[in-house]
Structures are given as C-alpha cells and as structure tokens.
C-alpha cells in the first residue's frame, strides 16, 4: 500500500506536470484578456511532438539525441524524493536533498551539452547563460534547504515535511519566511520563469532555455518540454512539502489519501495562480541583472541559516 502511494505521488508530479503548465498559461492569457489555449493543450503538444521525426544537425554526435532523454530521466528520478500525499517518499535517506539538487544539476549538465552539440550559434549562447544562472542558483538553493533542515534537525526531505506537519501554521518563524523566499526565487531561476527567463519569447537574443532547445525537435523536444514541466511541478511540490504540508495523510487509509490529494491539488492550483500573477506583473530582467536577483536569494538564504541560531533548541 505504502509503495503504491509512493509511486502514485511521483507519477502525479510527472504526469500532471503538463496540466500545471497549461493552467499557468491559461491564467496568464486571461490576465492579458485573451481566451488562451485549453489547459489540456500541453498534452496535445507532447503527443504531437512524440509522433514527429527527430531533426538532427549534420555533424552532431550521439549526445544530441541522448541529452534530452537524460534530462528527462534525471528530472523524473528527482520526483521520487518528493513527499506529496504523506510525509514519506520512495527514495529517502539523510542527505537526500543534496541528491535532489544534484539530480537537477545533472539534468542541466545534459541539457547544456545537448545544446552545444547542435553546432549552431544559439546553443552555446543559451548554454552559457544557463551555466551562469545555475552556478549562482545552486548556493541559495542549498542554503535555503539547509536552514529548514536545521530547524527540523534532519536532512531528509520527508522527515522535514513530517516535522513541519507537527508545527502550528501560525507559529511561523523568520527562518521559514526567509527560506521560503530564497527557495521561491531559486525555483523561478531554475524553471526559467519571468523575471529570469521568458518561456514564451521568440527573440533568440533574449533566450536562455529556449535557445538551448532551439535545435531539438520531435521526441527529443517532447522530452525536453516535458522535463521542463516536471521541473516546475517538482519545485512547487517541494515548496508545498517544505512549507505548507498541512493536509497530508498521517496513515495509509484511502480517505486520508483522498483528502490529502485534494489538499495538494488545491495548494498547487493556488501556487500556479500566484506564479501567473507574479509573472504578469513583472518584466523580464536584463541578463546581467539576473546575478543581482540571485544575489538577493543568496543573501536571504544566508540570513535564514544565520537565524536558525536563534531558534528554540
């Protein structure tokens, strides 16, 4: 039973990811007073891409086709670490949040290599920018996770979730506020959303993520798009698990799981709404202002860790 729930929660993140993306685009379209595409549209896009052929540049190596698949595998493996319905996950041991960060890094490494293998001008450009953003995002990512780990006295994500479940929501500490803002900023940078990167841009010179996937097509592009969507829902689920886990099931009963699934859906719908509102109300930063954005994230992460000292111990 527990194994089934573990598998279900990972599957939910992976399979529901395109829906979340569709939902965010729908809200953004509505804010712009457009009708917008249906929320199911990303599934149709994926299905279409999977049916199409792979276009390969003439001098590309095997990495070009392998990279999108590795990106997907690494991102999907990372979802096994996230507790969704109950404070436990398929993979979990002390220090597993480092594995989470490292799996995302592995995905990014493969993504940049795939981009550079295209042999065009834009792949390297996108890769170079992505390398900068991710190099600067890694520090705040781990600092934010470290601070909540210190509060919960465990470096295992599901144990941290379990600890937070036992706390009172209104008993929120400064560390939580700081860590949440750090991780939210990191999530925006990691998933390539406004103000760090514009996922809907059509101008090559402003692209980061889109420039990297420019050469990919067909199933390769489908894997990349899907992995991108999974990453978004993974980061959101991580934020929910670490900061708003209330509503999660405490036992493997059907009723509790159904309740926690409903709670999770409600929370992720709300987070999607917040993301869409945030993205619609802010302009994309210049590429060279992105380090400042991540600098703020590092500073809040730093403070979050420092403030753990004043917690109740």
């Amino acid at each position, binding site marked *: 039973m527990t194994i089934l729930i573990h598998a279900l929660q990972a599957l939910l993140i992976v399979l529901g990811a395109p829906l979340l993306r569709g939902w965010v685009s729908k809200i953004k379209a509505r804010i712009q007073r457009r009708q917008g595409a249906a929320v199911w549209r990303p599934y149709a896009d994926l299905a279409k891409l999977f049916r199409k052929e792979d276009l390969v*540049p003439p001098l590309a190596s095997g990495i070009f086709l392998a990279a999108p698949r590795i990106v997907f595998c690494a991102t999907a493996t990372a979802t096994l670490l996230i507790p969704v319905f109950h404070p436990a996950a398929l993979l979990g041991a002390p220090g597993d949040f480092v594995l989470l960060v490292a799996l995302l890094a592995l995905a990014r490494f493969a993504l940049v290599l795939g981009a550079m293998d295209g042999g065009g001008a834009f792949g390297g450009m996108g890769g170079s920018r992505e390398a900068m953003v991710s190099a600067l995002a890694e520090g705040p990512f781990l600092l934010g996770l470290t601070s909540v780990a210190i509060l919960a006295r465990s470096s295992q994500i599901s144990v941290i979730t379990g600890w937070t479940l036992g706390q009172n929501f209104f008993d929120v500490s400064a560390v939580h506020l700081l860590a949440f803002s750090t991780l939210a900023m990191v999530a925006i940078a990691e998933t390539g959303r406004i103000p760090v990167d514009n996922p809907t841009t059509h101008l090559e010179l402003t692209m980061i993520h889109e420039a990297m996937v420019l050469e990919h097509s067909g199933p390769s592009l489908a894997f990349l798009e899907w992995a991108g969507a999974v990453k978004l829902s993974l980061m959101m689920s991580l934020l929910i698990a670490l900061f708003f886990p209330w509503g999660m099931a405490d036992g493997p009963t059907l009723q509790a799981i159904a309740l926690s699934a409903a709670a999770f859906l409600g929370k992720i719908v709300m987070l999607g709404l917040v993301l869409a509102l945030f993205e619609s109300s802010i302009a994309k930063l210049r590429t060279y202002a992105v380090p400042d954005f991540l600098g703020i994230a590092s500073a809040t992460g730093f403070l979050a860790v420092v403030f753990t000292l004043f917690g109740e111990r």
Partner: protein
Amino acid sequence: MLGANLIQLSFLASLASFLAAVPAAWFEGRSKRWQGLPSFILMIGLLLGVFVAGAQLGSAAPPQFDFSKVTPFAFALKIDRLSAFFLLLICAVALPVIWYSRSYLPRHYDPVKIQWIWALSSLFIFSMVLVVAAASAFSFLMGWELMTLLSAALILVDGTSRERLHNLFIYLVMMHAGAAAVAASFFMFLPVSHDLYFSSLRASGFLLSPGARAAIFLLALVGFGAKAGIIPLHLWLPRAHPIAPTPVSALMSGLMLKTAIYGLVRFSFDFLGGGPAWSGYVLLTLGAVSGVLGILYASGEHDLKRLLAYSSIENIGIIFMGLGASLIFLADQSPAYAVLALVAALFHTLNHALFKSLLFLGAGSIADATHTLDLNELGGLLNRLPNTGIAFLIGCVSIVGLPLFNGFVSELLTFQSFLAGATLHVPAARIVLPLMAGTLALVGGLSAACFVNVFGVAFLGRPRTDAAESAHEAPQGMLAGMSLLAMACIALGIYPRLVLEPLIALAQTLIPTATLPAEFTGLQRLLAPAAVAMLALALITMLIRGRRRVTAPWACGLPGLSPRMQYTATAFSKPIRSVFAAVYKPDRDLSVLPSDHSYFPTAISYRSVRTTSYERYLYRPVTNAVVALANQLRRFQTGNIQVYLLYIFLTLVTLLILLGLRK
C-alpha cells in the same frame, strides 16, 4: 592472517622494482630486445603495492622496517592504515597512468627522452611511496625532497626554454620554502621528544605547550599547503603542472598533491591529535577561498591543462574544507561527526586522484590527436575520438560531483558533515559550518559551468580548425588506461562501500570513537535505488525513437553558418567572468588607431592579462624584501678567505659561550 612476512616481502619487492625500472630504462634505450621492460617492471611494482595496501587497509598489525643500523639517520618505514590508504591511492592510480604512458610516450618522444622519463618517473613514484610509508622524520623528508627534485627533472625532460626554466624556478623555490617549513615543524617536537620516529612524535604530542602545538600546526600548514597548492600558496601549480609531459602532469596533479594531504592529516590528526578549534577554522577558510577562487580561475582558462591545474586547487580546497570541519568537530567533542568529515575529505582525495588523472590523460589524448590544448581550436571531437570522449565525459561528470559518479559521494558526505555542524555547542560553529554548505554548492555550480564548457567546446558541435577536423582516435593502450580510471569513477559512485568501510575503520584509528553517524548507512539506501531508477527510466526513454532526418541547424534563415559562429570557451565563460570581474582584475590594454578617430578606427588591438594580482600584491613585496635583505648581506661576503675563517671562529666562540651560559 595472511603471512606478515609475505606482506613485508611484497612491499620490499615493490620498492625494489621501482628502483629496478631505472636500469631497465637504460637497457631499453640500448636495445630493441628490452622494449617495454621498464614499464613492465614498474607495473609489477605497482601491483605489489596495491596488494600490500589492500591487505594492510583492513589489518591492525602494520609491517615495520627499520634501517637505522645502515643509515646515518633514523630511517624507518611503517604501513599503518593511513599510510596504506595513501599507498593504495598512489599505486592504484599510477597503474593506469603507466599503462597509458606505454603507448603515449613512443608517439611523442625520442628513445633517449623516453629512457629518461621512465627512469625518472619510476623514481618519482618511489619517492611518493617513501613519503607515505615513512615512519621517521628523516625518511619522510628524504622522500619529500626527492619528490620535488624528480618532478622538476621530469619537467625539464620536456624542454628547457627560458619561460619553462622561469616557471620551474618558481616551483623549486616555493617547494623548498615549504620543505623548510615541514622540516622545522618536525624539529619543533625535539624539546619533548628524544628522537624523530613517528611513534615518539605521536607519544610526545600531548606534552607540547599550546604555543608549540600552534607553531607546529602553522608550519606544517604552510609546508603542506604550498605542496597542495592552497591559495595563496598556489602560484607554482598552474605554472608547473601544465608544462610536464602529460602522464607526469597526471601523476603530479593526481598523486603528488595528495602526499600533502597525507602530511597534513598525519600532523594534525595523528601527531597533534586534533587541536584547538581555530585550526579547523583556518583550514575551512583556506579551503573555501581555494575552492571558490580555484574554480573561478579555471573557468577563465582556455588552455586545457592549465584549466585542469586550477581545478586541482579547487578540489584541494574541498578536501581542506572537510579536514577543517573534522578538526572543528574534534575540538567540540563530537568525534562521530569528526569521523564523517574526515572520511569525506579522504574519500574526496581518492576521487580527485582518479578523475583528475583521467582528465589529464584525456587532455593528453586530445593533444595527441589535434596537437593543441587550446579549447578554442577544438570542437566536434566526440565523433572522431568516441572512446576518449566518453572517458573524458565520465571524468567531467565525476569532477562536477553529479550523482551516480564518485565525486558526488564525497561531496555529499562533505555536505552532511557541514549540516551536522548545526548540532555543535559553540554558536560560531553552528553558523559557519552550515554556511559552508552554501559555499560548497557555489563551488559545485561553478565547476559544473566550467566543465560543461570544457566538454561542450572540445568534444561537441563542429570542429573549429582543420586540426580538430582531422583528429583520430587514440591507440588501445591509451584508451585502456583511461577506461580503467573511468570505470573506477563509476564503481565508486554507485557502490561507495568498497572504499567507505576501510576509510571509516581508518578514521576510527585516528579519532577514537565507537558511535558512527547514521549518514553512512543512508548513503547506500540512496545511491543504489537512484541508479536503478535512472537506468530503468533511461531504458524506457530509449525505446521511444522516431524517424530521424539530418538538417542544418537554425541560423535565422540565413545561409553560411560557419563553425566560427559557435560559442568558444572564452565566450562561454564570459557571463561568469563578468559577474566575478572583481576576482579576476584583468589588465586590459585597448588601443585604437588612429587615436583621434575612435569611432572610425583602422586598427584595434586588444590585450588582456589575468590574475597577476597575487604576484603584484603578495609575492612581489616578499621577493623585493628578500632581494633587499640579500643585498645587505652581501657586505659580509668579501670573498676573502681569512674573513670567512674569522666568521667560523666567531660563531664557534659564540656557541660555546651560549652553551656555557645554559649550563
């Protein structure tokens, strides 16, 4: 009990075969009949070394050798667990490097030079083994000095141009200053210890006054820090490592730096038995600075071997951070976490030896195929050197610390020891150690950016020059050496228990504790399932393969996309270099001709020289002071022999008076 005599004999045989490789090299130069003899003897010696080390790693009865009857000073060897681990590291990593050299050397050097390289490098390995197996100050210092001189000689084999001699001079000066510091730290024990056997140093460590302990620690830190290339004592490293013959670069970066780690662990954990907390903070700070700056300097390089040399500084920084954390835990009475941090540092030492040697060998293969090490002149090599490319990729992924490869395991352990810092009693440590997790993450992120650049520019995309276009795969022997190292990286990444258990046992002999932190057991629960999940998913995604069509990449709809339009290594690292511009402080020199028409120039020349600030602000004042002092001292040097005799006489009288006063 596997006969103690057998172990002793094998160790002596291993030492003897390192020495026997020298005449074998001479024979090889004389006649075709002896072709391959020195490398064969050397490999037998290394295999014997691996056997001895493997047997001793799990045994509590170290074999000892005392030659003081036949040597003027106390010359003794002993292989306890710490020595055995480093002996294993040296022999096991040198083995593939030697295998690689067997086919590499004949392609690049004439027989006379090969003869020299074999003779010198077998002695070089001998000297490293001597350092880690030494059981008295004399044998240690002898090995230490030989190691410096032999590596310098190996650099000279490759050529004697002026610039090379200058770099070599800097290397020798810094190494000798370091050796002096190491020797001094040994002699500081003399007031309380009656001889310089390691066993008596260990026994007398607790008798020293706190001041003397601090002085010993600092001197050892300077001496070993210079050898390890810790910033700011790193000046020689990016100069000396790249100019050696490639297999020697691999030995220097992969193994020689590790002897410094050995020395530091021997002094601070074994002789001094930990120390005050500040010593931990010193190591931690030095490590963090070296980690961040080392990888930043590496990112700015486009010469592959220099880049790898700078990245060695980064990795040494990570090791120092682990050692520092361990000392802090030890001072705070939490030995379990001290074990964790020490194991993390030692594991990373082994890992760095594996992947750095692999990357240097890969660089050698690239140079072999294209005759250049400038990344900006490479490109598209993966199609031409597929096996080298895969091995090099494994090296890159391991050094970045991505999961399922060995670098990840040691970085994960280091992270966990930093996190455990939150359980300490001292508030300062509770802040500093968790913050170091952020620093380590920054280093990891930057090294990912650096090595994705290296692999992407060199091996992917389209060839940027004809040399890269006409490259060809390396021969079997070179590939075999690299694949052995690559397989070790993967094996330790998925199944780290192979090394972890002996390392825990080793750490427990240095830090007596019965309890072990839960982090060790969790590791295996995490890595193996993650590997299985990744592989299963990879199999599923591999099944989905559509039709393929070859088309030109996107060029905004315009024709004429040339390989030069790809990002170069320099362009790729530009965003990071501009974010961290304050660190690089480049000297830029832009001149536009004619100077009065800056908007309509006929010629523009631009030059940018980086990272000279250390020389300018740190080393230049020191060398100036030394030269000024030497000028003052010249007054004593009259050249008149009577005056010198007077000096000797005066010294003698002064010493006699001093002795009389003390009595």
